[in-house]
């Protein structure tokens, strides 16, 4: 009945008979009664399928379907329906990591394709098979930089998402790496603040930054390279469908969160991090790299090309011990990108750009908000509200809208994807004005 269970009833009976027991529970007899009692979990009898479905529906009915005007690292993009039936195939959905990798050609192929997409989007030479999420990818990039430059100081712009900065600081703490936060000026990384620094492993910035702004990455890159540091860029990969690639302005390491490429918000995870770098730094990159070659008969074959050997036999000296990837989510991204293609991804961003600029304009027209930064943004922007944010946020939730994130003081960080056009935006603004007054 269950193809995952290796033993049939017959097998189990035979095994029990051989060791002289009647039922499986007898196997646990040697455990003292007291411990068994203490450890006993009060589990209800199993549900029937009908009861289970009903129960789950009751729980899921508590979810609200909201119109989302918030991002801050996770974005409500449209998800093509073709992804679900493909991703749900058991070969993908339930297969475990292939410890003899080359026997799983299909897995290696989609990882290879994922890497190829990441290289194309970032412009970098090599990408790995993915890591847990965008924040840990950024922290791993820091390790690459400190290892390569043999310096233990890393600069991080304050315009990077604060949750990413927290992960960087956690990773840095236990490696005794000094994290220097670089001041911001009007929402942009302060060049003066970087110029005060020297002798550092690299600088971490975000594209677009936490406030949705597109910074002068080429200038930042040049300053860092003059100081022999590495330039690390955390990019929203969806926006790379329209923005300059990190490589084009000299990034040494490109990392980011892949959620914006077709993955659902799903309460904050699981997502997928990507990492890409230059050929020179390939050996410093954690995780795995899949490659393509020819087998003994000259047929195309996918192989595990590179994994830092340290991870197996010189573990204490390894630059990173990350061996895992987010395989299913990497596949998710791969299917999404293959469905969208370059023109589709461009269109998504053009619409996100138009929609987000339209929302900013409309919100400013209500005179309930003040402008905070300039208009050099895509998808996300910050406005200062002159009303009680908390109350309005709750009322909007009741009306089915998730408004911008309160980032500090009375500032809200709004995001609009291609999913919400003029009609939805007009409606949202109308309701918001209603709620405030």
């Amino acid at each position, binding site marked *: 009945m269950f193809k995952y269970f290796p033993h049939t009833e017959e097998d189990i009976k035979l095994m029990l008979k051989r060791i002289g027991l009647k039922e499986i529970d007898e196997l646990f007899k040697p455990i003292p009664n007291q411990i068994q009692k203490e450890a006993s979990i009060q589990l209800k009898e199993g549900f029937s399928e009908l009861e289970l479905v009903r129960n789950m529906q009751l729980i899921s009915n508590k979810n609200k379907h909201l119109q989302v005007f918030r991002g801050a690292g996770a974005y409500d993009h449209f998800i093509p329906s073709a992804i679900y039936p493909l991703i749900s195939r058991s070969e993908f959905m339930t297969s475990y990591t292939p410890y003899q990798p080359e026997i799983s050609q299909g897995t290696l192929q989609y990882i290879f394709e994922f890497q190829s997409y990441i290289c194309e989007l970032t412009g970098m030479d090599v990408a790995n098979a993915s890591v847990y999420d965008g924040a840990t990818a950024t922290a791993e990039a820091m390790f690459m930089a400190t290892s390569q430059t*043999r310096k233990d100081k890393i600069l991080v712009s304050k315009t990077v998402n604060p949750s990413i900065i927290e992960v960087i600081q956690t990773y840095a703490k236990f490696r005794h790496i000094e994290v220097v936060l670089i001041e911001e000026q009007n929402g942009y990384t302060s060049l003066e603040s970087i110029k005060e620094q020297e002798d550092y492993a690299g600088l971490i910035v975000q594209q677009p930054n936490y406030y949705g702004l597109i910074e002068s990455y080429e200038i930042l890159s040049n300053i860092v390279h003059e100081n022999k540091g590495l330039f690390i860029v955390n990019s929203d990969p969806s926006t790379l469908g329209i923005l300059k690639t990190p490589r084009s302005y000299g990034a040494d390491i490109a990392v980011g969160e892949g959620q914006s490429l077709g993955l659902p918000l799903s309460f904050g995870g699981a997502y997928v991090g990507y990492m890409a770098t230059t050929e020179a730094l390939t*050996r410093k990159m954690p995780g795995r790299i899949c490659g393509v070659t020819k087998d003994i008969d000259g047929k195309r074959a996918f192989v595990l090309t590179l994994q830092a*050997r*340290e991870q197996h*036999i*010189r573990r204490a*000296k390894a630059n990173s011990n990350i061996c895992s990837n987010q395989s299913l989510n990497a596949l998710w991204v791969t299917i999404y990108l293959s469905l969208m293609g370059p023109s589709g991804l461009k269109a998504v961003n053009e619409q996100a750009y138009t929609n987000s600029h339209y929302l900013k304009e409309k919100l400013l027209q209500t005179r309930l908000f003040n402008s905070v930064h300039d208009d050099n943004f895509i998808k996300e922007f910050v406005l200062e509200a002159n009303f009680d944010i908390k109350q309005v946020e709750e009322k909007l939730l009741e009306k089915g809208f998730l408004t911008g994130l309160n980032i500090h003081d009375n500032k809200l960080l709004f995001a609009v994807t291609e999913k919400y056009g003029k009609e939805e935006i007009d409606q949202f603004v109308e309701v918001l004005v209603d709620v405030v007054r």
Partner: protein
Amino acid sequence: MRYYTKTDEWVKVEGDKATIGLSTHAVEELGDIVFIDLPSVGDKFDKGEAFGAVESVKAASDIYMPIGGTVVAINEALNDSPELLNQNPLEQYLIEIEGFDVSELADLKKE
């Protein structure tokens, strides 16, 4: 003349400089070498300290200093073509050092 360590490195002293490499035996045992991780010029190591690593299709292992000293040159050719080490381990040094103490050669095996 080369001096050998128990961990299969060799050192050859010429004036105030010394080159360090891997023994023919070590290279044969490792098989096809695919990557050599070398230190930077200016790095200083004590005798017995690991200064780099070598990776082959079969294994990866640290490389240790036969005598202490400061790195003044590395064999750049090995970065691009690590297989040179398989072809001629005694000709292909890994690093060149200065500022060593010849008395540290005493416990090494002579060629």
